[in-house]
């Protein structure tokens, strides 16, 4: 059986403000999950907490990855164990090329399995980059550009997918990858995710809109409201949401709350 990301009763505060209030979710390798919800429902808090952003404080619950509680781990260790997050707002690192950055990231992974590792040889790395860029139909000059520095919105998101392709995570979280993309860019990025998807990759697509789900087909859909997953189901749930909006869920929530 493959690795799984298991969120158990997760409570998170940001600047002493409770945001997540008991989230439960399991994503396994080979599965695609979509997490939907209105703005401010806690979706990005969940992704950032999974990845270990220091500003998010876990007050209760667990995050288990591949059978190990990762809550005390730094983001780099979580990453080296096979977690990946495609950022909603990728950060620019001027002066550092995409290739140089990825080679270092890859070498950090290799050192985890073998502390004596001398790093991937340059020719092998070059070959790998070309292979991945071709797979994602990206221009090779991309590798020589400074990471996210002066990239368009679409280029930034494609750079995220390229990183994912090179680092080969077991579980990837797409944090509102569709935000700010026009329809062409959205298609390209979605195709990238679909290309990489397989039995060894589990994906959690976090999104505000249904439209990315026209390209990335989830088997599971979850809806988050006010820091909790309030509804889970199959792909039909997303369609239902598109037709009905979130109001019926709010009503349902209020109804059950009484």
């Amino acid at each position: 059986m493959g690795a799984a990301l298991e969120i158990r009763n997760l409570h998170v505060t940001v600047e002493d403000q409770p945001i997540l209030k008991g989230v439960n979710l399991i994503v396994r390798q080979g599965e695609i999950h979509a997490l939907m919800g209105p703005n401010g429902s806690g979706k990005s808090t969940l992704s950032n907490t999974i990845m270990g952003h220091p500003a998010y404080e876990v007050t209760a619950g667990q995050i288990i990855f591949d059978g190990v509680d990762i809550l005390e781990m730094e983001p780099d260790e979580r990453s080296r164990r096979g977690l990946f997050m495609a950022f909603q707002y990728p950060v620019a690192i001027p002066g550092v090329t995409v290739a140089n950055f990825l080679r270092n990231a890859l070498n950090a992974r290799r050192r985890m399995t073998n502390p004596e590792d001398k790093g991937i040889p340059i020719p092998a790395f070059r070959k790998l980059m070309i292979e991945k860029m071709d797979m994602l139909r990206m221009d090779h000059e991309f590798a020589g550009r400074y990471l996210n520095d002066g990239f368009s919105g679409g280029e930034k998101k494609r750079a995220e997918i390229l990183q994912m392709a090179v680092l080969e995570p077991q579980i990837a979280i797409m944090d509102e990858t569709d935000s700010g993309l026009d329809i062409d860019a959205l298609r390209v990025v979605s195709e990238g995710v679909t290309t990489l998807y397989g039995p060894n990759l589990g994906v959690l697509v976090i999104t505000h809109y249904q439209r990315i789900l026209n390209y990335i087909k989830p088997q599971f859909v979850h809806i988050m409201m006010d820091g909790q997953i309030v509804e889970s189901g199959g792909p039909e749930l997303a369609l239902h949401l598109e037709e009905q909006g979130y109001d019926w869920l709010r009503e349902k929530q209020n109804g059950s709350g009484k």
Partner: protein
Amino acid sequence: MGDAEQLQGIREAYDEQYGFRDPDTYVFKARKGLDAEIVGQISEMKGEPEWMRTQRLKALEIYQSKPVPTWGPDLSGFSEDDIYFFVKPAEKEARSWDDVPEDIKRTFDRLGIPEAEQKFLAGAGAQYDSEMVYHQVRKELEAQGVIFKSIEVGLREHEDLFRQYFGTVIPAYDNKYAALNTAVWSGGSFIYIPPGVRIEMPLQAYFRLNTASIGQFERTMIIVDEGAFLHYVEGCTAPTYSTDSLHSGVIEIVVKRGARSRYTTIQNWSDNVYNLVTQRALVHGDASHEWVDANLGSKITMKYPSVYLLEPGAHGEILSIAFAGRNQIQDAGGKVIHIAPNTTSQIISKSICKDGGRSSYRGLLKVYPDAAHAKSTVVCDALLLDDHSESDTYPYIEIENPSVTVGHEATVSKIGDDQLFYLMSRGLGEDEANAMVVNGFLEPLTKELPMEYSIEMNRLIQLQMAGSIG
């Protein structure tokens, strides 16, 4: 691994690579302190002509008459009475590594100097405490008339050329430490590149301190004749001691018509060294000079390489990197003086500080009335790695001609949590992530270095970064 344990590991790594020391094996050591007798002793041991001895003694008076500068970092903690001003390492200077005393040779082996010389240098010099112990240049260059000697040999064998230029670019009265150097100079390089000769590989000199409480006063003179090209590189390290040492060099460069020269420094002194250096280049018509000045080590550095653009078409560049860590002050920058029309210049300064270190850009751009249509750009960027470090900018700009084009930009940024989180989320450790941001910040300058030096530079930054204590 705990912080303390990690720190221990880093100290060991530093000592292992640079901070180690050899047993004292000098052949002569003057008593501590400075007076006319010591100056006379130095001159006598070098067997100098009378005119040189006179200049030294005159410079000593100038040094003693000038106050310690107070406009920059605080130098009041330094006492010349505690310093050995002259420590002679070996009887003679060798032209083969086999003739260098064993202990000293081992040091330079460990620092990789003979290996670098074989691989990518046109010539190498090595100074140990007060004098050069080795100097050699490739035979084919010597055959073309290239002179690459220690400064003492330069004076002995090329006295006319030496005397024609010595002290003309940087006179003793220029500043207190130029006067000091003129009084007690010892070691450094003497370089002459004949007209039209282009040396594609760099010449390198490496400066090493070994004795505790020493003063090192390298004096280098470089003349690049018409249409010639030279890249000279200096590196320096020292053992870590609890007492202070002083390095106070003077570098005089003359770049003749149509010639080009570049002088690269990778300064990595241990953090008990005061580094007070004066460097100046006089640039003639259509010639250019570039200073690439990287200051990573030392306790206090005050260093403002300068370029005087004397004739039309002259060009000058200063690329300055300053990295101040714990207990370090880097007061660096540069000066460009436009004297003639149609001269151009560029100053790019990148300063970094962390763990309470302090780095400043101090620069002067001066355009004289005759320098019509001069063009200059000044860019200073600072990067702070934490909240308790400081960076200052003192850009002085004096323009006395209305047709001049000047651009000036300054930025200060701080490595943000978001940058760190982003890099760490890809598997890079915190130190590695920080080093990556820093290397990226410096990239516009390091890419100017030959590959061997940019690799060295990245490695030094990594080392400097790893020294951080949370």
